[in-house]
């Protein structure tokens, strides 16, 4: 269970590193499909409950496929759409960060920002 300080700090890092950089939606969630923190730029609606359940299933399925071909994991998961793309990153063994961004942003920039955010979230979780 995450404490209030951790949740505040996670909200803060997602807002300042990702939403401020122009991402549309960001969900920090557990592998069971529960959203822990949800943020968006306020411009579009997302059914984040259903999305988190599907994202967990998707990540788990790809992870199981990785094991079948002898990989410990596929660390980058990326779905590209015409207008919107989705980037999946593992944060800890039990949590995922899902970032959604529009065509105005490059995947490279998003990856950099996401790596930075994951580092900070890990530090927040370690601090307790």
């Amino acid at each position, binding site marked *: *269970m*995450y404490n209030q300080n951790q949740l505040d700090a996670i909200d803060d890092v997602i807002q300042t590193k990702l939403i401020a950089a122009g991402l549309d939606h960001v969900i920090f969630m557990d*592998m069971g499909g529960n959203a822990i923190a949800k943020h968006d730029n306020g411009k579009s609606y997302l*059914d984040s409950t259903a999305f988190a*359940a599907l994202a967990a*299933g998707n990540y788990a*399925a790809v992870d199981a496929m990785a094991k079948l071909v002898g990989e410990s994991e596929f660390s980058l998961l990326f779905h590209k759409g015409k207008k919107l793309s989705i980037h999946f990153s593992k944060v800890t063994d039990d949590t995922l960060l899902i970032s959604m961004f529009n065509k105005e942003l490059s995947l490279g920039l998003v990856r950099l920002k996401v790596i930075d955010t994951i580092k900070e979230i890990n530090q927040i979780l370690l601090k307790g």
Partner: protein
Amino acid sequence: MALINVKKKEVQIKIVYYGPGRGGKTTNLEYINETYQDRIKTQMVSLKTHDDRTLFFDFLPFDVGQIKGFDVTIQLYTVPGQVKYNATRKLVLRGVDGIVFVADVQKEQRKKNIESLNQLYENISTYNLDLFEMPLVMQYNKIDLKQANIPILSSQTLQKDLNSSLRAPAFEASALSGGNVILTLKKIISITLASIQDQLF
């Protein structure tokens, strides 16, 4: 494990409907979806094949109101029942808080019920969970087939086959007409909530 968010005062609980293929797990969720439309903010998600067999899972979240200041959301999942999908069944069980085992009362399904329950025991043990300590409700589904003169197993036989050592609450049900679907749901919610109370308060 239930997700408890102290900041937003939210609790999310995961309940999985498990059982052999074509047993009525999805039908349970469809009935609940129709009955509790007003509490369900999102669409029921179903990942299924062209012939309506569950491929990955069905997902249905709904609110049960507040408990001691926490908004409680129940997330209902089904697993695919077909034997070949065990890898995906295991994935859906990750983070489970409570289980409804939907057994098929048709006589010809007797062996499949037992095999499915045994596999459930093995599957959740991969997450270091013990079925004997897990909130669990047994549902003996398709009891309405008796009227159609289809040979069915008696509740005594099903209890002996599946529930003699687990001793979970058990209900005869007819998911198609809704018989005891809600009673099953209420029971699993109440015992799951009771089991996580220690974490909450």
